[in-house]
């Protein structure tokens, strides 16, 4: 093992540009290919299964690989195969370039924005098989693809580009219903981004930083040391959760789709292009869940983490912390699915009234409350 370390330390010295590039690439690949995409696929199945269970049905439980049914989880593989082999229909009068670009623009920004999320405890370079006490590592590899000072501002900036996906899909389809869906999507996403930013701003005030990794470090292992504890924090969480669901365009904020009135901005899409929009929705759920876990629920921290870090190998501790983080994100995804299948859809005017007249003033008031809170308590 030591010779492998020495080899890596020689070609990739800690802190060099090539080291940063390789580690960032490795982390991105882990995050997207091994976490986000499989989880998004499983969520497409879980949405159907969980909604069925909530409505006293059984749900999809038949798909299998040979004798392995796995409660029907292979359904998402079957769905993907079906979508790939379906006819890819492009309306004759559609704008071909924008029509092809829109699904990519719906998925890519969310994946890019997830780069700032810290998904585990730092790995100690060169000391992975040693027991490393917390805070003593000299060469930590942060489990975060990009450590930016702009932090959550980067997330907001990039994630808001996803509105182009919906708006362009509506515009390029040459279909009135699609255009209405695109218009609704853009008005809704712009309205709720303001509230989302304001809710996050009260957390910026409390943490004194924009950087998600630093936010996780500011929180403790035990639930009462997490970011949610405190009055402005709870308000910020509720506002952030509501606007994050509105951002992902899901029930109760799904008027851009509104399948009973207009089918939505993706009405002309078929096959895997539609699948991209579908997948993008679930990737958005995962990313917003991950942001909420990072800001409000201690990120990768779990009860007893500090004790564990001082008693197990560094690599094992990092794996356990990634597992704890994944479990939290998964629970949040399940919670978002619970909301989606419990609440009825808002009407377009109700949605905008809720956004601009109720939630935005509340979120601004919460920023003031957070400022007072910081002044008095810290």
């Amino acid at each position, binding site marked *: 093992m030591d010779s492998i370390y020495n080899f890596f330390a020689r070609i990739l010295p800690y802190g060099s540009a090539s080291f940063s590039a390789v580690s960032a690439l490795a982390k991105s690949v882990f995050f997207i290919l091994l976490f986000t995409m499989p989880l998004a696929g499983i969520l497409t199945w879980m949405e159907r299964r969980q909604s069925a*269970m*909530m409505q*006293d*049905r*059984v749900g999809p439980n038949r798909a299998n690989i040979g004798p392995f049914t796995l409660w029907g989880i292979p359904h998402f593989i079957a769905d993907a195969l079906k979508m790939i082999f379906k006819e890819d229909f492009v309306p004759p009068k559609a704008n071909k370039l924008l029509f092809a670009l829109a699904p990519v623009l719906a998925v890519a920004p969310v994946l890019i924005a997830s780069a700032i999320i810290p998904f585990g405890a730092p790995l100690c370079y060169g000391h992975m098989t040693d027991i490393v006490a917390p805070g003593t590592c000299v060469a930590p590899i942060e489990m975060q693809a990009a450590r930016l000072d702009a932090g959550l501002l980067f997330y907001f900036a990039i994630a808001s580009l996803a509105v182009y996906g919906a708006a362009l899909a509506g515009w390029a389809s040459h279909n009135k219903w699609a255009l209405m869906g695109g218009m609704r999507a853009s008005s809704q996403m712009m309205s709720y981004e303001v509230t989302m930013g304001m809710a996050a701003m009260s957390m910026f005030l409390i943490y004194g930083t924009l950087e998600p990794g630093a936010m996780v470090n500011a929180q403790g292992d035990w639930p009462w040391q997490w970011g949610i504890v405190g009055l402005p924090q709870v308000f910020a969480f509720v506002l952030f959760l509501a606007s994050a669901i509105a951002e992902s365009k899901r029930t109760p904020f799904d008027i851009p789709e509104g399948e009973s009135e207009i089918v939505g901005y993706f009405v002309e899409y078929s096959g895997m292009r539609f699948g991209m929009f579908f997948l993008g929705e679930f990737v958005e759920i995962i990313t917003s869940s991950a942001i909420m876990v990072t800001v409000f629920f201690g990120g990768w921290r779990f009860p007893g983490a500090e004790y564990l870090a001082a008693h197990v190998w560094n690599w094992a501790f990092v794996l356990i912390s990634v597992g704890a983080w994944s479990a939290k994100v998964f629970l949040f995804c399940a919670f978002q699915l*619970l909301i989606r*299948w*419990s*609440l009825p859809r808002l009407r377009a005017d109700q949605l905008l009234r809720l956004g601009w007249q109720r939630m935005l003033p509340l979120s601004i008031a919460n920023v003031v409350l957070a400022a007072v809170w910081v002044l008095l308590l810290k």
Partner: protein
Amino acid sequence: MATTVKIVERPAGIRRKTYLIAIVEGMWVTFRHLMKNWVGNTLGRRAKTDIATLSYPEQKKAYPERNRGLHRLMKRDNGEVRCVACMMCPTVCPAHCITIVPEEAPDGTIEKRPRIFEIDELRCVVCGLCVEACPCDAIRMDTKVHALPTIRRADAILDKEELLSRGDTSTATQGGVGSFWREKVKT
């Protein structure tokens, strides 16, 4: 007639207006159902859950007693077809799906029997009038079997042998009691 307008009262009070309590209550209901069904289904105790789904090919619901299924032809005591080719059922059939070609019966007890007895299950409307019309309990629809899907249309036309293969000996008196049945039943 004057149009009446029913004014629906909007919820009053901060508790009702914010809908927050109602949202939490509603989500608690769905969460309770989710946990009960999920845990019960995972442990294999479907009966303890609220799930009403019947897993069809494995589980089948019992049909009611008077369900009309695929036709069958009943048999005489000696195993011959019970039908006497009286042509009642092709006459009454609204879909004209029954084809009977009669022939003379070899033994002297009855005059006729069907040489060909065919039912086109694709044309059959499953009305059951043929069973009602039959004077000697020769045709029945009590199999509780559906008309099966077939590759060729010809396969859906059932002939005498196939109809007889589901057949059984009738409990009705062979040949009936004749036109004096009222007197005979009294005694």
